[in-house]
């Protein structure tokens, strides 16, 4: 587990991208999404778990994900979030944007020799 000092706070809007990416494979409930993000970033990204929820509501309002009721692994009713067709398209757009951004920043930080 990384120490607290190594953790990075998320950029504005980045959380949306991560949520969309996490939901590509299958619908998940909130806690599972939070866990997945933490796991996949190997605990580098600092997510206040609760901040996930406003992001989820934002994405629903934009029509990029939808919510449906389901039963969780420990047999409880839970809300499952699923990527919509519009959300899939948006994921491609956002991923492209993100790559451009990281490339551009990388180029500034380490100019080609």
């Amino acid at each position: 587990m990384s120490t607290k000092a190594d953790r990075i706070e998320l950029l504005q809007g980045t959380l949306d991208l991560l949520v969309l990416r996490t939901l590509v494979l299958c619908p998940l409930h909130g806690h599972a999404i939070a866990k997945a993000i933490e796991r996949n970033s190997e605990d580098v990204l600092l997510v206040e778990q609760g901040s996930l929820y406003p992001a989820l509501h934002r994405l629903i309002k934009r029509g990029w994900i939808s919510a449906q009721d389901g039963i969780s692994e420990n047999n409880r009713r839970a809300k499952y979030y699923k990527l919509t067709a519009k959300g899939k398209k948006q994921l491609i757009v956002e991923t492209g944007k993100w790559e451009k951004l990281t490339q551009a920043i990388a180029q500034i930080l380490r100019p080609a020799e």
Partner: protein
Amino acid sequence: MDGDRHLNELDQEIRDHIDFEVQENLARGMTPEQARTAASRKFGNVSAIREETYTVWHRVWLQQALQDIRYALRQLSLAPVFTVTVMLTLGLGIGATTAIFSLVHAVMLRSLPVVDPSHLYRIGSGNDCCSTGALQGNWQVFSYSLYKQIEAAAPQFDNVAAFQGNAGVLSVRDSTSISQARPLLGEYVSGNYFQTFGLQAFAGRLITKADDQQNATPVAVLSYRSWQQNYNSSPSVIGATFNIETHPFTIIGIAPPGFFGETLSSTPTEIWVPLQTEFLTDGKDAFNLIPSQAWLHLIGHLRPGASIGGVSDALTATLQHWLITDADLPPQNRPRSAEQLTRQTIQITPGGSGIGTMRDAYQDSLRLLFALCLAVLLIACANIANLLLVRGIARRGQIALQLALGASRLRILRQALTESSVLALLGGIAGIGLSWLGAKLVIAVAFRHSTSVPIDVRPSLPVLGFCLGLSLLTGLLFGTVPAWLSSATDPIQSLRGANRATHKSAALPQKLLIVFQSALSVVLIAVASMLTHSILNLQNQDLGFATANRLSIQMEPPLADYTLDQLSLRYRDLRARLAQLPGVHNASLALDGPVIGGWQEAVVKPGEGMPRLDGSENTMWNRVSPGYFETIGLPILQGRGILDSDRADTRGVVVVNQAFVKKFLSGQPPIGKYFGFHLPAYSNAFEIVGVVADAKSGDLSKPPPPMAFGALAQHIIYTEEILQADDKWDHFINEAQLYYSGDLGTLEPRIREAFRLVDPNFAIIDIQPVQQLVDTQFDQQRAVAQLSGLFGILALVLASIGLYGVTAYTVARRTSEIGIRMAVGANRTNIAALIFRGAFTQVTIGLILGIPLAILFGKLLANRLYQVSILDPTALLIAIGTLILGATVASMIPARRAASTNLIQTLRAD
């Protein structure tokens, strides 16, 4: 609500989420308590997350705004005295400013009620009315002959309409009745006049080009107002035949209700007749026949895309060509050099708002009043800012609590600004009502002697918009300082210190506001005093002629069909009949009475060349009947006045005044000297037989001009036709004067009867005491002085209330300090002095700043002031005195309260 469902679901999810986390933590081996704490910490601030989610689904800013407004209204209703005070203060400030703005809008900004005013352009500029053939430089008025040339030379105009530069009175007699002719303000207009303005008749039809032909049936159009007031809106008027200047005219229609003519004036046109009928009414002396007689203003509808500069240049060329070839100017007025000719130009100027006689007359006054109103409004704002500051400080504990509970500084700022905006809007609503009343009041004050005021000040959209904008702006203005200060509160300190903290930062803005108010009030009161001083000087001045028991009968003899001999007979008859009326001591007739002003002529003395063109050798010129000087009370100093023996067949005589002797005879004995007008050939026309005292004439704020009075019964026989016409016109007199005692009410019908017996076609325009004519001339200045006095008092009252509020507040805050002072031996006088000193420090600084400002304003006003020096000590003393008085009263009450502080109670209270 949909958003609430989302929130409920969110709560469930949050509980689930934390449960999951707790389970995991338990699995890792934590105690249940540790597990729950860790899960909560990892999850974060639940209420912040709820709020953030909420904002996803709601238009939060709107809700918050509504919430703020509701909160503000609740707060205000909890403090009714405060709210009403603010509303009244603001209502007065906003109302006064809006009232003046609505006048500014009506007089200066509004377009004529015509189609497409933006394409209307004046040909020429300025408001001069008429000229008998002088070179004008930048041309303003045009003769009929020049009008025709310009119309032909300006294809860029759709229409060029011509109309009489200064509408005159036409004698109009309903031919079906035997009544005396009615004087209507009439205007000769070209056939395309109404078409150029794009107007439709209210009833019947308007004048067309076909009516404006020499052989066409004479027609006339009545103004809606005249039709209403003089003819009871009777439909039978349309198509009826009226005798205008004794000639039969058919009334063909009524102009639209909003159209007061192309000139905004306090005496709007009542009847329009075609330009060509002037040949009928003025006979062979018609202005239209004289190429040099400039009496028409021109306005046209410019085609889109035409260049104004290009048209101006083309018309200037036309003018200069016309001056050489066709102008036929009187010999003394002809251009004397090529250079003088090139200085004659025509400019195209915007004409959408008509001819601005009134605009020019009132704009300075309106600007001044507008500035004064804005100053009052600023004082009101400063006042309310102070009141709000006091409130804000009292509420500091509450704000501190809000801040401590996590409200953002922005939110508190916004809440404070919302409260001030709500207050301002309430003030604005009060202001609309007050502005409407205010505008009516201003008009009543400014036009107290006018019968008809062509100004519509009902709240219009621009005025309402202005009022709303002004309210919001004032809200922002007086809300900013308190809002900023209240949000700057340090929660810890405030909560700890409660209301006893003596924060310097909060007291300073309050004091500065008082300084600012005091300075502005000094300026306002000084300005008001200077204007009042000036109007008092004007009213109490020695005019030179008498006004007591003097009556002026303004009249209009019909111009055509009377030979000068016939007129002479009627004049003599009229004077005799008037003189015989009971109570009348003396009666006379004159071209112009003592107040109205009148003609100017260029003096030529024997042995001298042509008079100069620039007016420097002009004298005022009047034709008077015998008895004139006695009737108007002008003392004869040397020689004699005009007598019955001065007849057409005796030598030409003239009476001059002292200013004339000084200017033209450089102090030589005047009796027996000769002079004449226009050309050297006529320099022997008049012999001076008497000298009268100087008297004011025309503009009563100017020094007495040189004046010459000729005998009404005499003529100069000029050989030049133009000058001959000139001589005839100066025998069409405008006024009869009476020196009388007794009741005007019983005299007036007898006067009218006398006129009817002499000739029913002699129209009486007005019968007025001379004093009233004098008063009317100062109406505007008096109105401005009175209104600025009103604003000055308002400013002072507001400033005093502000000072009172702040002083009272200071006393309340310093109660314990005062208690301690008393405990250590201060007596009541010491305490009162302490409070007075505090209040007067600010007022004194205000005075120190305000006095130089007031002097500066005096300098700006200099040209409006009559015999008031720029540094008017009286005005300054009054300003200083009233401010000190106001401040004393305002600080007296709190000082007394402070002095009567009960020592024991105070010390126990804390």
